[in-house]
């Protein structure tokens, strides 16, 4: 069910949510968190879709904040808020409210979002594209326990990476890091099997790939070795090589979802390493809402082997 509201306020939106829920006959609220998506019109559709898919695992109220720019200068000064309320089958397993802000209210989006947060439930903010310079200090970001950015989706990923390093606060996380989980878990499993000291390491990827950079920094910090970066044609991360006394441990994924794992003294075998869709990444992010300390370690890279407790 969809309810359109023009030139509205947060309290009218709240009323519409209650009305929508009553209309579909489920007055109980089984949602576990509020997800705030801050995006532009261009990326809104894909992000909402990903959030709705993820809501099957984590029923959520999704608030989508879209800043609109009016065409004429006169309209630009006029401040107003439009909302689209979706409940029931139109909104995954939760509720979705799409907020379009015009004019001055765009700078005070937090005043609209705050009354719409679920009581007592955690808040997650996700910027699918352009994240603020310091997410934790952003008016919307400061409402959240978890702030999700995506360095892969910006013009200059490595510049964004440096910005993330400077601005890190507990609760920050990035989808470029989330994408690495299968790689990292396979590397850890390979090392469980090899049980030997690593003396060198290399990460191969396409140029300017922030995930590869994070992977290299994480390996450097954890293994205490210098990690070489090799640029290949991609796609994304193509291989990781860990050198040992007895030979190399290699996970090689030249193309497609099928990788090969080679351990010293053992025949190579295949591994499934799929590039996951955004909805799965978001679902993984929502599984734990406490600070991701290992992400901080990966951002900082070598030098800090201990997990920092407070940053």
């Amino acid at each position: 069910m969809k309810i359109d509201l023009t030139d509205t306020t947060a309290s009218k939106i709240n009323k519409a949510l209650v009305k929508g829920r009553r209309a579909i006959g489920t007055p109980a609220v089984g949602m576990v968190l509020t997800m705030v998506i801050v995006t532009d019109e261009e990326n809104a559709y894909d992000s909402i879709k990903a959030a709705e898919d993820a809501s099957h695992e984590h029923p959520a109220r999704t608030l989508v904040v879209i800043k609109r720019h009016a065409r004429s200068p006169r309209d630009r000064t006029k401040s107003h808020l439009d909302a689209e309320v979706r409940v029931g089958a139109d909104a995954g397993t939760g509720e979705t409210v799409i907020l379009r802000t015009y004019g001055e209210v765009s700078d005070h989006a937090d005043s609209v979002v705050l009354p719409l947060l679920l009581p007592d439930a955690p808040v997650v903010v996700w910027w699918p594209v352009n994240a603020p310079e310091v997410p934790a200090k952003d008016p919307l970001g400061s409402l959240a326990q978890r702030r999700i950015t995506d360095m892969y989706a910006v013009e200059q990923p490595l510049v964004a990476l440096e910005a993330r390093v400077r601005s890190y606060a507990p609760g920050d996380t990035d989808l470029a890091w989330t994408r690495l989980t299968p790689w990292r878990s396979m590397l850890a499993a390979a090392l469980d099997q090899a049980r030997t000291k690593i003396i060198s390491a290399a990460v191969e990827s396409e140029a300017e790939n922030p995930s590869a950079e994070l992977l290299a920094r994480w390996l450097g910090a954890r293994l205490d070795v210098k990690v070489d970066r090799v640029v290949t044609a991609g796609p994304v991360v193509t291989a990781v090589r860990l050198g040992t006394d007895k030979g190399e441990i290699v996970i090689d994924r030249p193309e497609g979802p099928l990788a090969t794992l080679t351990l010293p003294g053992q025949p190579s075998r295949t591994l499934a390493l799929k590039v996951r869709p955004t909805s799965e990444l978001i679902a993984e992010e929502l599984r734990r809402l406490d600070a991701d300390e290992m992400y901080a370690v990966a951002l900082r890279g070598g030098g800090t082997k201990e997990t920092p407790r407070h940053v």
Partner: protein
Amino acid sequence: MSDESTLPAATVEAPAADAPPKPEQAAKPEKAAKAAKAFEGDLGSEDDWDNPLRDPGDRRLPLIAGPSGLVIFGVTGDLSRKKLMPAVYDLANRGLLPPGFSLVGFARRDWEDEDFAQIVHDSVRDHARTEFREEVWQQLAEGMRFIPGDFDDDAAFEQLRAAVEELDASRGTSGNYAFYLSVPPKFFPKVVQQLKKHGLANAPEGSWRRGVIEKPFGHNLKSARELNRVLHDVFDPEQVFRIDHYLGKETVQNILALRFANQMYEPVWNRSYVDHVQITMAEDIGIGGRAGYYDGIGSARDVIQNHLLQLMALTAMEEPIAFDAESLLTEKLKVLKSVKLPEDLGEHTVRGQYAAGWQGGEQVSGYLEEDGIDPQSSTDTYAAVKLEVDNRRWAGVPFYLRTGKRLGRRVTEIAVVFQRAPHSPFDSTATEELGANAIVIRVQPDEGMTVRFGSKVPGTSMEIRDVTMDFAYGESFTESSPEAYERLILDVLLGDANLFPRHQEVEESWKILDPIEEYWGTHGRPAQYASGSWGPEEADEMLARDGRSWRRP
């Protein structure tokens, strides 16, 4: 979980004057570290090698089973095709199996490895929970082997040993194997002895060999002990995993979370507030094609001895000192050992057999008319028993356990029914429609929890009636929670025995059931009940004697 509160369970009745201890956040990573240690210990390290890529603070990394393989006996059976093989695939798809994981099938079929792979492929496609992905399949398929043969066939077991050794070399399974006996129980001794004879049960230095068996774990105390003797002769008692798939279910694990991670339930979880507990497992199907297995066993041995007594132990037990196999076993054993049978078994136990009738719009035949059943059979398809737990917490609170086939609908639930309020300021007409408060844990289907309490009916007069507050799993957490078998197979490979009943529990459970079966064996015949109903009238009478009635689940 348990480290969040250090209040001993015995203090629950004390007034909550002293502030509860603050949950200690720091304790959690330590726990994870311990788990990681235990996991590494599994790999049999002589040195203290720590994997630098693992860190207890890194909680994204799933606990992947170490290098290992699974050998399934009776791989052509229903359970294997519908549950085990799809579960293995789902695990692989979720990235929880180690690279090089190998699956070996053993059965009396003239198959090649490829034929076996095809059978697995089909069963995965039909029954897996997660989507079928070619690359995951390819990873799995490379490690599949099939050994044709009889359980008597020495040559086949030699071949199995060769296959295991070949896999160690070609897939790096490091000698770690779990042997899953998905075969009728009469073959258990044969198979494990063959494993022993051919040196398959002996783990090489630094690796493990585990035996996995399905119920029934014997049919009385004597046979259970005999079975345990046979198994423990071959496998270390710690390396025998008894599958009770109910314990792998999310809701069942949630009983512990509900009770011991929360503050609001435990204070009322005792005889001062609870009137009685009903544990029900109802099936809407008959015995189907299982006549050979079922006749002579019956529902009490089939269900009460394992599933229901386990659910009861989890509901009634005290707080374990830690969430590990040893502590859980200790607490569950205490409950099972303190179970007291009613003095008059005739008054407080009931058995029944389904008669012909209409069930859910279908006409069905009675138990005695089923194919392969002796028309004189006195096997029970319905059983209800009253048990008491003789300890301070539960003295005088009856636990009613019932199970049956061809009942109204398929449901498993634990209902904790509370006493009525000792005093009501409302007049009796206002509370006429008010029943007893209850917490119902729905184990299956529609996993979740219901709390039942009284609420004012909107309007000008004061009228109070029962309402329910519902927590559904599908709603608040994952859309499809992992299948019980997924969890259990992974736990076997990880060597985590939390969710597996130990042989002591099995023996204690038989000690509870044996006297009841003996009584039934010498007194009367099972009562007949219409298919599609909620059991024989005798069962209703049994509760009426205590001034109670069964909940309609």
